[in-house]
């Protein structure tokens, strides 16, 4: 614990030291065990027994206080008060240790911002892996085969890919799908054959001692080494914040080349034994590629739709909602792998297909859970992969051949550059937005290799490929070269070349409007031109989606919600949350600065004779009051936790009651109508139904508040509203007449409710749009209100009924 505390010390060099210490502590743990995480998946439990058991067996018996070596003596011994059975918990304990090490390392790097700004995290993690491996070796233990292929492909890879697929920016991805496919398929094929072929040629040169290497293993090696690795690309590209286009090009390529790699790998592996490849095999290979890629996508899509469909019915068991998504995705991956289809493509398809529907169905909280779990899993997996890569480097038997390794590295670079430049030349003929030379450079340079290549190499059969160790060494070298050299230099190069960076800004509502507008405009222009392009088909698909698919997969009424409205609601929701969390400070930290109020943009039309819509103006004190009310209302929605329930965390008013909300809104509107009919001389703004999210929040928090307004408002200062504008003196007169005639209690009550409601609406609307309130005073014509105590009462905001409610503990 003390180590952790000191870690926070700001001085860089010192915390470096501390981190070393931390590492050491970790290593002592690890050394003590020095056992395989891989053993978890490796079948030879007996071997594990032998290595792990010995030293601790002694301890066990020592502590138990028995000198007896044999367990079968029946002498009575003292009951073991404390016993140690490490073996019992060994595997999970070690897994936890590795995960803990990975997380602590990640934590440590982020405490030293200076270091992580120079060296990418992936490099640091590999170094840590090397150190850990080295220490294990120093301790005289056998380094565990941590990067076991099974472990890698079944446990570590899926979370990263699912994360990537789920958060895949669909729009740029689909817009550039042609280019991405070109790079992924043709580019990878080119790389594989170029590298493999030339390597074979080099191996035939006398004096390299490599003449025993045949063509097919070379090609196999080429296909393993040529694929760009999504894990490495993600790790590096997330840090350099490159613009969206380049990011999606490199990243998309790394995802989609999986199918090519899988097919090439199996093809060459198959024929390495047989030797001969006929043209028939090539044709079969092409068919196999189509099946592997399209089949993978199909499997993923099916599971994605299933997940979406399931999430339609989970509104009563919100807690397990996220689980469905993870399980369906994992099943998709496993199912695809079962048929040797592309598991990566299945996961991507699954994530991308399910996302829009699942997001509409699951609750806000579940969505957050999904997001966090995905991010957490993927980042831990990523960290573990890089650490394991380091450990595996230390562990593995190496066969270093200078020629082979250096030729591999050079050929990889050369083929990548030629491939990208050549393909871009072709692609640019078809692209509307051409790729510039800079773009090509980054795409070529961003082709990092990673742990997938290593794991594929690791899978090779020792008997079939006697040169497996040399291959592994070359693969590791290539990975290290790309991750260290290219990964470390790409950031300065991006800065040097002034490649456009990603804009981090939040999307504004104007941008959203114009994005939509542009889509429709371009579709329209294409239709006028009479040829069916990209936009036309996208529009068709969208409409089909809206008409049929959404109806089936999205529960309730939300499928009708157009994108723009959904965006607006989301934005509003965010602002409401921010408002609450900011503690009602005067300045709202939202996207909309509170400098401009509604009345600044409201056209100044002459007030209509009866119902004038001026905004209420409040003094500072009143403003505070309103904020308080609003806050407590929103807080109350969070305090709904009445009783503990295993299946629901909190009755979630924001999501569960959409239908309910619509109903209430209907009633609200009716009420408003009634109000305007009854008391249209009151000049408070009517309820404005334009902020459903806020309404939702309010209604859900206190559904009764609007219908049974508490007449009294003790302790809460009343808020006076600009009752009648000077332009409409009639209204005051009417009002007076009305009060003289004596309103019936009922109508007064109704009006009360309506007015309170309207007023609060007005206030809230101001709130959530970032108002600037002006001190009331001179302009205020409050005589009507002052003359009539009843009216006065009705104008006062009901507010929180008792103060102690606010003192309740704030439940998260």
């Amino acid at each position, binding site marked *: 614990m003390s180590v952790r505390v000191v870690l926070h010390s700001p001085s860089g060099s010192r915390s470096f030291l501390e981190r070393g210490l931390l590492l050491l502590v970790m290593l002592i743990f690890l050394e003590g065990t020095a056992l395989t995480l891989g053993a978890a998946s490796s079948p030879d439990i007996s071997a594990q027994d032998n290595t792990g058991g010995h030293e601790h067996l002694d301890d066990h018996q020592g502590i138990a206080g028995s000198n007896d070596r044999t367990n079968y003596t029946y002498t009575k011994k003292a009951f073991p008060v404390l016993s140690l059975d490490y073996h019992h918990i060994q595997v999970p304990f070690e897994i936890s240790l590795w995960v803990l090490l990975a997380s602590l390392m990640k934590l440590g790097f982020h405490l030293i911002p200076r270091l992580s700004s120079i060296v990418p995290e992936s490099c640091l993690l590999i170094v840590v892996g090397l150190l850990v491996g080295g220490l294990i070796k120093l301790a005289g233990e056998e380094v565990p085969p941590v990067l076991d292929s099974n472990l890698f492909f079944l446990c570590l890879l899926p979370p990263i890919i699912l994360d990537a697929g789920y958060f895949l920016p669909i729009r740029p991805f689909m817009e550039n799908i042609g280019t991405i496919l070109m790079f992924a398929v043709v580019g990878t094929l080119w790389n594989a054959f170029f590298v493999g072929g030339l390597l074979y040629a080099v191996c035939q040169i006398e004096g390299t001692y490599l003449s025993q290497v045949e063509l097919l293993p070379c090609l196999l090696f080429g296909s393993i080494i040529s694929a760009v690795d999504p894990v490495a690309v993600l790790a590096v590209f997330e840090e350099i914040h490159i613009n969206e286009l380049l990011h999606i090009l490199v990243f998309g390529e790394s995802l989609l080349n999986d199918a090519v790699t899988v097919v090439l790998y199996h093809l060459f592996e198959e024929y390495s034994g047989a030797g001969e490849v006929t043209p028939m095999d090539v044709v079969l290979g092409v068919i196999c590629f189509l099946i592997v890629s399209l089949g993978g996508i199909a499997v993923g899509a099916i599971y994605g739709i299933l997940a979406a469909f399931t999430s339609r019915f989970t509104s009563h068991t919100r807690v397990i909602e996220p689980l469905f998504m993870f399980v369906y995705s994992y099943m998709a991956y496993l199912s695809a792998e079962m048929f040797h289809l592309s598991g990566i493509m299945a996961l991507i398809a699954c994530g991308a297909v399910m996302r829009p529907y699942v997001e509409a169905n699951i609750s806000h909280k579940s969505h957050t859970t999904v997001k966090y779990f995905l991010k957490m899993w993927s980042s831990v997996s990523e960290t573990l992969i890089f650490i394991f890569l380091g450990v595996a480097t230390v562990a593995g038997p190496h066969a270093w051949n200078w020629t082979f390794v250096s030729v591999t590295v050079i050929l990889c670079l050369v083929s990548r550059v030629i491939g990208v430049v050549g393909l871009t030349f072709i692609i*640019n003929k078809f692209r*509307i*937005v*051409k790729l*510039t030379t800079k773009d090509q450079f980054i795409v070529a340079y961003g082709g990092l290799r990673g742990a997938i290549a290593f794991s594929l190499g690791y899978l090779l059969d020792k008997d079939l490929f006697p040169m497996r160790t040399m291959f592994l060494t070359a693969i590791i070298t290539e990975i290290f070269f790309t991750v260290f050299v290219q990964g470390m230099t790409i950031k300065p190069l991006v800065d040097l070349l002034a490649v456009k960076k990603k*804009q981090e*800004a939040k999307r*504004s*509502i*104007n*941008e959203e*409007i*114009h*994005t*939509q*507008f*542009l889509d*429709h*405009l*371009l579709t*329209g*222009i*294409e*239709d*006028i*031109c*009479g*040829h*069916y*392009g990209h*936009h*036309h*088909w996208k*529009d068709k698909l969208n*409409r089909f989606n809206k008409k049929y698919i959404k109806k089936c997969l999205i529960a309730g009424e939300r499928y*009708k*919600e*157009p994108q*723009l*409205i959904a965006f*607006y609601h989301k*934005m*509003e929701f965010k602002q409401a949350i921010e408002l609450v969390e900011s503690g009602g400070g005067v300045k709202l930290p939202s*996207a*909309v600065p*509170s*400098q*401009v*109020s509604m*009345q*600044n*943009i409201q*056209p100044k039309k002459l007030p209509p004779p009866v119902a004038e819509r001026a905004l209420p*103006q409040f003094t500072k004190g009143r403003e505070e009051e309103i904020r308080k009310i609003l806050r407590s209302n929103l807080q109350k929605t969070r305090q709904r936790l009445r009783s503990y329930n295993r299946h629901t965390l909190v009755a979630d008013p924001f999501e569960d009651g959409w239908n309910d909300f619509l109903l209430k809104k209907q009633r609200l509107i009716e009420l408003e109508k009634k109000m305007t009919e009854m008391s249209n001389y009151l000049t408070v703004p009517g309820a404005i*139904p*334009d*902020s*459903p999210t806020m309404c939702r929040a309010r209604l859900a928090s206190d559904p009764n508040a609007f219908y049974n307004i508490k007449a009294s408002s003790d302790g809460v200062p009343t808020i006076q509203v600009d009752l009648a504008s000077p332009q409409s003196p009639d209204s005051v007169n009417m009002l007076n007449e009305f009060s003289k005639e004596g309103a019936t209690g009922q109508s007064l009550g109704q009006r009360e409710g309506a007015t309170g409601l309207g007023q609060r609406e007005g206030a809230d609307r101001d709130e959530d*749009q*970032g108002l600037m309130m002006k001190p009331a005073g001179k302009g205020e014509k409050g005589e009507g209100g002052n003359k009539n105590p009843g009216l006065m009462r009705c104008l006062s905001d009901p507010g929180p009924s008792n103060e102690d409610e606010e003192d309740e503990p704030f439940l998260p």
Partner: protein
Amino acid sequence: MGALQSLPDEPEYRDLSEKTGFSFEQIGILHKRFKQLSHNEDTLRRDDLNTIPDLSCNPIRTQIIEAFFDKRNFHQNGEGTVQEISFEEFLVVMSHFRPPALDMTEEQREIIRREKLRFLFNMHDTDNDGTITLEEYRHVVEELLSRSGALGKETAKGIADAAMLEVASISMGHMEPDEFYEGITFEHFLKILKDIEIETRMNIRFLNMDTTNLCKKINSQQDHYLQVNGEQKIA
């Protein structure tokens, strides 16, 4: 391309090509489309565009069609609307959607950007007073949501208001309560959309080639739907 040579007004195309930046082939194809839409007349009317079946489900159809008849989009400093347009004007309007060249200087990029945004701005600014007022903006959003029923109409106003508020707060900073934000001027418009890379997005692909036999079929039969199907295959 055989069809292109058979077209009589080749020299005329050179003129148009210089003016709009389209290639001869593109002009040829667009001309064919123009003739088809206008039923072989020299001018195009609103009704001709209104009857395009694909356009009927576009929520902003009226605005798109109006843009073709808006003098501001003809590069001639005109104002107001016209009843019918010739092929040249059709082409000029279309040229707003031409993709940019590969190597542009920053200045060229900025010019193209302004031009494209001006087109958008003019679509919103229906009364041509240089500002998009709240009313106009509301109208835009309403049209956008016009296909989504009652829910859309209700929310459209709120969205437009929020958007306008955002513009006002971005472009004006602090405002006194009695000040009035007139509407979005073009400068403000540029400012709020600076993150949308309009120069790379407001483009459509204009076909360079047209299969000859397909065109012959169309010429002989004047069958609209056949062309639709044929080009579907091309695309």
